[in-house]
């Protein structure tokens, strides 16, 4: 597994490197320079495609060794090589970013897991989730605090109040005793509180920060629900990818210190808000009030003989599912990513060679 992890880790590092380069260039040379670098990196990224392809091959081989060389798996390998792989490989050439992030997440999980397995901290496996949870909760909470301290406590205070109200309400109603419940309510406070703050912030950069906190909260939820891989993916893709993208968007298009305009007419805004609140109320009502079919209590109990199984890392199961039940979505998403990337680079790229018509037909084009 170490080979896989190393490869994936290296890709993740590369990504990190690119990200920092981009930020630095953007700060020094302005948005255009960053965009140019971005495009450049995209083009250069082709060679990187070999990494996920190798990883995939490695996963196949890993499966092979585990189940012994029988005819089925062997044929699967052959088919992969002759039918799927060429297609998959070329598809991946373009969609490396997203896959790197996923695999990078796998790497982090893997390292963490190996570390636990070697009894490094003397923690049991099931504790790893709590550890991660605490880490993220701390990140989110400190963001909250730091932002409050830097930009004043006006709106921040509102979010904190909302969060505290949740926690307080929960504590008073449920007499929280155990650790998991505590984690849940803290996370809920972070996720919902920052959500409220996104809504009430009047600067786009603040919104992005609160989005970060909210998304981190969701990552914690995933961990709480036993989805460790998903939690890390959430962090890597959302916080490491999408959010950075948003910040880029903000940097390139907006003056960050100017307050945002609200919807132009109140005639639209007020009914909109009323409807939005009503829908929210309805959904909350339904979510909380339904007699949803639930698993027997013993299955979801986190203690007892099933505890270790329940806390198992999900990466292996996911990998297996990707290669069997979910093989089609797995392949289709690569086409989707390819299309999205081709489209994004095509639409966002400036005037370049082989595109002479662009300058001519822009009515409102800004030079």
């Amino acid at each position, binding site marked *: 597994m170490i080979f896989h992890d190393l490869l994936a880790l290296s890709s993740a590092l590369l990504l990190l490197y690119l990200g920092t380069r981009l930020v630095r260039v953007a700060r020094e040379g302005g948005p255009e320079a960053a965009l140019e670098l971005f495009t450049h990196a995209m083009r250069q990224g082709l060679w990187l495609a070999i990494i996920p392809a190798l990883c995939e091959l490695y996963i196949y081989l890993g499966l092979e060794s585990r189940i012994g060389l029988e005819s089925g798996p062997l044929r699967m390998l052959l*088919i992969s090589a002759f039918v799927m792989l060429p297609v998959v490989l070329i598809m991946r050439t373009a969609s490396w970013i997203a896959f790197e992030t996923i695999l990078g997440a796998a790497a982090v999980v893997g390292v963490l897991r190996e570390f636990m397995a070697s009894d490094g901290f003397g923690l049991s496996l099931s504790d790893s989730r709590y550890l991660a949870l605490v880490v993220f909760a701390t990140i989110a909470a400190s963001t909250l605090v730091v932002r409050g301290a830097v930009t004043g406590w006006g709106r921040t205070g509102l979010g904190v109040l909302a969060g505290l109200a949740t926690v307080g309400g929960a504590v008073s109603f449920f007499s929280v005793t155990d650790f998991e419940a505590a984690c849940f309510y803290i996370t809920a406070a972070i996720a919902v509180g920052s959500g409220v703050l996104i809504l009430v912030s009047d600067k786009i950069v603040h919104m992005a920060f609160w989005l970060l906190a909210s998304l981190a909260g969701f990552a914690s939820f995933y961990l709480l629900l036993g989805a460790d891989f998903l939690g890390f993916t959430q962090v890597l893709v959302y916080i490491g990818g999408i959010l950075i993208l948003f910040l880029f968007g903000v940097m390139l298009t907006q003056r960050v210190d100017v307050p945002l305009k609200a919807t132009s007419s109140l005639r639209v805004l007020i009914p909109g808000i009323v409807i939005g609140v009503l829908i929210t109320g309805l959904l909350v009502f339904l979510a909380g009030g339904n007699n949803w079919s639930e698993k027997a209590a013993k299955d979801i109990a986190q203690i007892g003989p099933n505890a270790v199984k329940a806390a198992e890392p999900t990466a292996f*199961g996911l990998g297996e599912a990707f290669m069997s039940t979910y093989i089609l979505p797995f392949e289709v998403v690569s086409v989707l990513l390819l299309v999205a990337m081709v*489209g994004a680079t095509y639409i966002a790229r400036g005037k370049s060679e082989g595109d002479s018509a662009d300058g001519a037909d822009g009515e409102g084009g800004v030079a």
Partner: protein
Amino acid sequence: MFDSGLLASAAENFNAKEFGVMFEHILYSVSAFTSELVLVAFVLGTLLLDLVLPLRVSKHLAWFALLGCLAASFSGGHGGHSEEGLFLHMLANDSFAAFFKQFFLFGAIPVILLSYVSEQFDGRRMGEYYGVLLAAILGAILMASATHFLMLFMALELLSIASYILVGYIRRDRRGAEAALKYVIYGSVAAAIMAYGLSLFYGLTGSAQLADLANVTFSSDHAVWSDWTLKTRAALTTLVALVMVFMGVAYKMSTLPMHFWAPDVYDGAPTPVTAFLSVISKAAGFALTLRFLAALPVENLAPAWETIPWIEMMIILSIVTMTFGNLSALWQTNLKRMLAYSSIAHAGYMMMAFVILHSTGVTGAQALGFYLLTYLAMNFGAFAVVILIENRLGSVDLADYQGMGRRAPLLCACMVVFLFSLIGVPPTAGFAGKWYLFLGVIDAAQNNAHGAGLSTWYYVLVFSAAVNTGISAYYYLNVAKEMYLVDSEQKESLAVSTLGKVLVAGLAALTFYLFFGADGVLQNTQDMVFH
């Protein structure tokens, strides 16, 4: 580190035999999936070829893409049907899916040709365009065959993302950019709402399979069924989930309440893309919705469904959609916007297919499939004429069409055919299409296909559609009026490429063929079923 205890235990749980069976199934699925693989190969081929070809040849990638559609169409997998569908319940392998696969591949051909003859793209690299277009077709095909929430959502997103790119393909065109922005923003919202709705269904049924929708339950053994409020709430949740999912697909179908994007986006997008959106994208939405609704219990077997009046909802939405589309189209002076509203109205007609899903005579699938075929012929035809004239005039204003009947006799004669077909006058395809829809609805009304109380609803529906046909005549004829009945000083004839003429004439011929040859076409769609 390699053989950690955890992995070892996981490997022990791994059942090689089960895996072998699953693997056989995947092999089987791949063999039934050849069209799509060929399509993917051509997507990549188009993108890669564009890297090596010089700019002036780039335009001719259209022929390569066309070849791709034909190749995919002819390499269709075996028609066999398996209980498990394809890829372990991800896709259906039924005649409905097969029909739509061919429909989309066939429908892509006019789109490609329209793009080829259109001069809006001149001087531009077209590799990305055709590549993305083929990927959109792939998305549409998957939408028509998806039976798993994830696949369904992903197929929808694939088509959406590809469409966003196509709409904004002319980058520095302000109108195009605005259209793309509106499309992507509203589209994302619709998709996100749909995802939430799907998640609710997932919770209700405990399964992500469409086939399990009938199993909507709200209780396990410890249920409190005596509590009526709980029961009402359960039905309400189902309703909310259904509405949310419908919002997502309604966006693709451009029916109310998710229609508002259509006029702006149709107007701003390059005209061939508008044609694409109005036919292919819409058809994909309809195919998906039909499959979704077909999965709902027929005889209201599931407790939660019995209180969901979804047929009545669909009837009302259908009426409102067609009336809105037609009334709004009346005032348009821009041909593209007019066709946008007209396409909303036609979406309203097509929604009639939803309420006759389980009819005995003409089933919803059959009527919809046929209507879409006729719509393909006539709408692409109308857009072809618009594009060819736009090439010369640079305008899609109705006022510029004055006296066009003399300047471009063939185009306008064909346009008249398309317009009359859009109204639904025999002997054109449009009439045949409406005919089968009406036939189905009246059949359902007469035979109480969906319960006795619905007859009146059906008659109201079909009557509204009839009145709407009358309304629609006004604005369609308005175009014919400008072309033929109004004289203009401009007399010189328009130079139209031979390919353009052939394309328009071909579509006009198809419009007639789908009326006179409707029998043969319908025999083929008669056994269209869901598995």
